[in-house]
């Protein structure tokens, strides 16, 4: 008797709890998502659209925005510095991919169970934990004329040292080598985890069939490492196209702008002493974004396919 009385009271008190009771499963996800969507829209989605819009204007960051139409892009296609940056981005992308096989190689080397191997694994991983600023400074020292280990090594071998970071022929490669150091460590840890999960039965079966060495790696191990390879490729592509810190720390784009990449050139145009050309900078950013979208769409497409397959 009392039970039905309380429900009756609860029912008459107001419509709200009842509404909540019946609809909470439909409303709850949006309540949980609200802070995330709000922050992400404000700081990520809106800025992407605003940058695209801004790339059609001339703006110094303070005054009036002046509509230019496609003039920023037209200027860009006639800008040598833009082509230098684009070329360097392609070199970055191509050479950065070496991190994937190099990481696999080190992972295979370390995938043993001898005493102390855990410490070796974490020490090999070490460069990834350090800030790129510190990596940049470490390699600046490594390459420094007269002081640097690398400089002296080259001098000892060839007779004349090479000031890598002051030579426009080598500077980009020098910076990429610094970037590869942590990136290889990252790929290595992905592969070490992947190797841990390779099915031992299949390896044994393949061994009985006489598979060894490279053939074993190619036909039995690598197919099982596919998820690790996918993530390694994703983070390496993104890392290559995002390269900014090392260029800024090691050379500031120099000598004579020869080590610029798009991300750095954009920053230089929009926010440095060379002028606050926000619109022009935004146009460079849109180009970089378009290049990255090609890769991002590919990754997402594969992820959606996996999601559907689940």
């Amino acid at each position, binding site marked *: 008797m009392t039970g039905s009385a309380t429900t009756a009271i609860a029912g008459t008190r107001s419509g709200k709890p009842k509404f909540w009771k019946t609809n909470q499963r439909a409303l709850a996800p949006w309540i949980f998502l609200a802070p995330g969507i709000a922050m992400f829209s404000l700081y990520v989605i809106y*800025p992407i659209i605003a940058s695209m819009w801004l790339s059609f204007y001339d703006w110094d960051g303070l005054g009036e925005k002046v509509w230019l139409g496609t003039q920023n892009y037209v200027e860009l296609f006639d800008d040598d510095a833009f082509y230098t940056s684009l070329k360097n981005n392609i070199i970055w992308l191509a050479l950065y991919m070496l991190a994937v096989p190099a990481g696999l190689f080190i992972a295979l080397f370390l995938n043993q169970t001898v005493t102390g191997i855990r410490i070796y694994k974490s020490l090999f991983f070490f460069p990834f934990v350090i*800030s790129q600023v510190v990596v940049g400074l470490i390699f600046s020292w490594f390459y420094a004329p007269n002081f640097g280990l690398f400089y002296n090594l080259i001098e000892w071998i060839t007779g004349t040292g090479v000031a890598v970071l002051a030579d426009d022929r080598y500077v980009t490669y020098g910076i990429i080598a610094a970037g590869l150091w942590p990136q290889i460590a990252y790929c290595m840890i992905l592969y070490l985890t992947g190797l841990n999960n390779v099915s031992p039965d299949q390896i044994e079966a393949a061994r009985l069939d006489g598979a060894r060495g490279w053939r074993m790696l190619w036909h039995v191990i690598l197919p099982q490492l596919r998820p690790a390879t996918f993530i390694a490729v994703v983070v390496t592509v993104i890392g290559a196209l995002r390269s900014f810190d090392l260029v800024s*720390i090691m050379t500031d784009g120099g000598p004579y702008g020869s080590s610029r990449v798009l991300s750095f050139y954009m920053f230089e145009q929009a926010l440095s002493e060379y002028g606050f050309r926000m619109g022009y900078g935004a146009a460079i950013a849109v180009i970089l974004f378009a290049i990255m979208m090609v890769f991002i769409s590919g990754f997402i497409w594969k992820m959606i396919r996996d999601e559907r397959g689940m």
Partner: protein
Amino acid sequence: MFPIAIQKTSVPTQILYKIALPVALILWLLPLLGVAMTSLKPSSDLAAGNIFGLPSYLAFSNYADVFRNSPIAGYILNSFKVTIPTVIGAVAIACMSGFALAVYRFRFNLLIFFLFVAGNFVPFQILMVPVRDLTVSTGLYNTITGLALFHIAFQSGFCTLFMRNFIKGLPFELIESARVEGVSEFRIFWFIVLPLMRPAIAALSVLVFTFIWNDYFWATVLTTSAATQPVTAGLYSLNGQWIAQWQLVSAGSIIAAMPPVLMFFLMQKHFIAGLTLGATKG
């Protein structure tokens, strides 16, 4: 196991492997070891041309000099002030949005999820001008709050991806049976799912801590003065002041690298679990 366990190979191979391990490690860490050694050299050694030899004595005074003659202590404090709120904010947001995307079936679920994923990969430069503008117009330019707010928002993309996939792996029957019992959705989140997310929260916190500590780009875009700059941006300006005083640059670098390195060694298991989520099936 692949490659073949070293214990099963011939004795010379085993010996070779035992020698190759430390040699490879030293070569791999050579730049770092060089910098560590340089940071302990008195400046007289460098002036006298002792570049690669051992220091004539261990000059810990370089470290004292860095602290005494530069604002590095302040930079480090700023780094903590940016990093810790970001970790808390981004992980808290991601727990909620990850839960929403993993547990509920509703329209736009996958669309929202992939927006978070895609946003996480975009180049920073496409965000730079509007984010800076937004921060200036809200009066948060050159403040720690302004920098931390952006980091929270941006990291919530990666964190949501991570949390959503983690919660997808939890047994869904737990939630189903709680619903049958009439437990409200908020209580399911708070009392059933959140306690199970503890390992994911730990892994994500360590990762985000490292990412934010090491951030350099946003620090240079959103902060300008020594009172607000974190240590990465600070190190850049100190490097400009310490031209060719490599013993100071080295000591400063090592100080700046310490917190994430300590974090990594203390929380190694969580760190690697976080980083490699998705590198294996399931």
